[in-house]
């Protein structure tokens, strides 16, 4: 294929458009988070003066009075615990589906897919009622349980796709070479499975981190309110100031680490997001 300079120009424009489209909201959030209050309404994309006051106000007052620290701890804690449980349960299930023959395999996969299509709003009312009766309303566990249910289909599908690619006969080969079954599993299979497990963990974590519907329906205080829910209920310094600056700063704090993480592991995430998407 001949590559004319016209091709280069066209591709450069296409690529630049995609990059600008993806980056604008992030740069914009960083911009408003750095604007001092009096410059907030200047309608400029690039701030003229830079101030870190919005960030300071997020953490002011320590853990008890800051509007942001507790939700941040809740978000991280709930997402990590859910990810750990979800990955363990999904690994067992995916191992069985990828490696063993048993009736009910297709039913489990179809059921997982059906749950992925399930509208979460349909479970919010019953859960709200049940959690209040069981004392799970406004607790970490009250969010971990629905997150587990709705993240398992994703984790199972990603793991089954990865596990099907593992050359399992290596396990027996290692045992023939004198390894114990435990050594064969930990030294041969675990390293081969680790990338898939890690990928599934990233996707589940992002899923929990992103949820808003359960977070505002099943919590009522900082005891378990996560960042997305807390952002929706942020108030300004006084009732006369809009919380725009603090929301932007909080948004940047929860966004930048995830973006850095996503970019570092982008190959794995793309593989995970498209794993088993279409069979060739």
């Amino acid at each position, binding site marked *: 294929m001949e590559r004319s300079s016209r091709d*280069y120009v066209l*591709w450069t424009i296409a690529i630049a458009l*995609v990059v600008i489209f*993806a980056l604008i909201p992030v740069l914009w959030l960083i911009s408003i988070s750095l604007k001092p209050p009096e410059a907030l309404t200047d309608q400029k994309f690039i701030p003229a003066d830079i101030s870190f006051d919005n960030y300071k106000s997020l953490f002011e007052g320590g853990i008890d009075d800051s509007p942001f620290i507790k939700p941040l701890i809740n978000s991280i804690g709930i997402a990590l615990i859910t990810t750990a449980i979800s990955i363990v349960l999904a690994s067992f299930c995916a191992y069985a589906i990828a490696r063993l*023959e048993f009736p009910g395999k297709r039913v489990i996969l179809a059921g997982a897919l059906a749950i992925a299509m399930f*509208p979460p709003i349909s479970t919010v009312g019953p859960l709200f009622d049940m959690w209040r009766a069981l004392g799970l309303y406004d607790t970490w566990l009250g969010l971990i349980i629905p997150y587990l249910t709705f993240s398992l289909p994703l984790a199972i599908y990603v793991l089954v796709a990865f596990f099907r690619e593992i050359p399992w006969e290596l396990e027996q080969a290692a045992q023939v070479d004198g390894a114990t079954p435990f050594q064969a599993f930990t030294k041969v299979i675990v390293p081969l499975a680790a990338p898939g497990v890690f990928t599934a963990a990233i996707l589940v974590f992002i899923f929990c981190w*992103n949820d808003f519907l359960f977070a505002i329906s099943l919590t009522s205080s900082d005891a378990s309110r996560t960042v997305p829910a807390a952002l929706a209920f942020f108030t300004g310094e006084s009732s006369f100031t809009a919380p725009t600056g603090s929301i932007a700063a909080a948004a940047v704090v929860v966004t930048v680490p995830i973006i850095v993480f996503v*970019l570092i592991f982008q190959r794995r995430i793309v593989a995970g997001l498209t794993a088993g998407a279409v069979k060739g």
Partner: protein
Amino acid sequence: MKSERTRSERKLAWMLCAPAVVAMLLVTAYPIVYAVILSLQDVDLRFPDEGGFVGLSNYTAVLSSDLWWTDFFNTVLIMVISVAIELVLGMAIALVMYRAIFGRGVVRTSVLIPYGIITVVAAFAWQFAFSPETGFVNNLPLIPDEKDWFGGRFSSFAVIIMAEVWKTTPFMALLLLAGLVTIDSQLYEAARVDGATAWQRFTRITLPLMKPAILVALLFRTLDAFRVFDTIFIMTRGALDTESVSILGYNQLISRLNLGLGSAVSVLIFICVFLIAFVFVRGFGAKVEEGRPGG
């Protein structure tokens, strides 16, 4: 001996799957049954003493209200427009990622950014951008300086759809790219030799061969778009007739604590989602078993 082994293999498989299956059913199967039961009763937590079985009257109340049909129209409108734009844009981005003679890595890196951002955060970013007070959008050329985007129903929809498209197009593009790479490149060479133009190659080779991938991507995105909640809640809270059906359900259940009416709305949403999936699978022949849950 062999059947002994198959039997133990089965038992092991079931034991390995049981915890995940139970966890998945716990918060779906039981609550949906409970939602159906609640929807047949007069349950209002503000008046806990009243109540009792009322048959289908919650459903008739919802289905004969203008609010439900307004919200249903809003939801379908947002769903159809955003999924259509996502398909075109996602296909364009997938083609850029597939065919670019340089810079593929940069494109892939940047499309993952919207995927990593919390939907609520993205909604705030676009809300601030379009707000007449803080936003930069009204400062752009061709856009009236005083445009109050959230002051009208359809201009609010425009911003809501834009935020939804921004957040979910990357997922669409990645799914379409996965379908694109499975096409045999020799087909393109043969068509080129036969004198087919780039457009002919796209419509005669790419689109037909990608039909399964497109249908699966459309099914998942359509169902996801029908559940639209976060963006609307942040941007308008449903003001000026911009509610979606999920916002209606939330308002009835959590804000007004009317579990009976709210559950009727929930069950109706469940039925709609089921019907959409049914139409895709039976009507268009989407091969769902080749699909996968969305991120």
